[in-house]
């Protein structure tokens, strides 16, 4: 499976990558903002995307919109520190299948990915 990790934080991109089941995810791509995420999505067509929200250039919610327009079947897990309920609701409304609140652990990322892939 192919995964696209979108986060402006190097620490987070590496943490998410380390948490993966590398037998399941054999191709991993990364992007540091929403605009690059949309470009990478078009280029690689990943099976799953993890998407931060607060990023420079283009935020994650806008990127979710654009990706869902390109592929309404895209699978997106939003991973964000924004803890208000309305942001999580908005992410799901725009097409994300899940919302994981930072701070995360390797186990919480792993479980969240397994859960959205089992749906």
């Amino acid at each position, binding site marked *: 499976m192919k995964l696209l990790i979108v986060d*402006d*934080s*190097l*620490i*987070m991109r*590496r*943490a998410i990558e*380390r948490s993966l089941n590398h037998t399941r995810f054999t191709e991993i791509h990364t992007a540091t903002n929403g605009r690059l995420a949309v470009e990478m999505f078009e280029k690689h067509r990943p099976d799953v995307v993890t998407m931060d929200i*607060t*990023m*420079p250039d283009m935020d994650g919610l806008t990127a979710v919109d654009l990706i869902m327009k390109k592929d309404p079947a895209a699978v997106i897990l939003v991973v*964000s*520190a*924004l*803890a*208000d309920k*309305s*942001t999580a609701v908005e992410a799901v409304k725009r097409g994300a299948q899940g919302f994981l*609140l*930072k*701070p*995360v*652990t*390797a186990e919480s990322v792993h479980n969240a990915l397994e859960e959205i892939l089992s749906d």
Partner: protein
Amino acid sequence: MEEAILKIFAQSVTRYFATVAGGEATLGTPYLNSDRESAAFDFSAVIGITGTHRGNIYYTAPREKLHALLPLIGEKEPDDRLCAELVGEITNTISGNAREELGAGFMISTPFILEGNPLTVHAPKDSTCYILPVTWNRHRSRVLVSLQANPSPEKS
């Protein structure tokens, strides 16, 4: 208002260390940084706040603390680049988590990394800057909270 805001950030910091570092952080009594003196350790990051509040949130930590924390998140070879990235991510997480109480109108910027001393606190006119001391695993760090309620959020 200050006490309520500081309590929210204290909760965010506690949650961060409990989740990521697997151990409680001890929070000291917040105090006023009235002289705007340098409160910086080796690495600092700042996040700008707009919307319902205006101001900045800083997190600052010494290299030794970050070198102790990085292996716990899987970084086995800590270096200065990772230290800078980590203070940025901690600032982002504690600021974003504050929206659980403060709502979506508490708008946060992406983190800006500041390296070395001195740290100059940029604060809205007439606002105060509080320092929240954080001790984890005997290492000290600080959260600086300089916020003012914004009576006209749509103009920020």
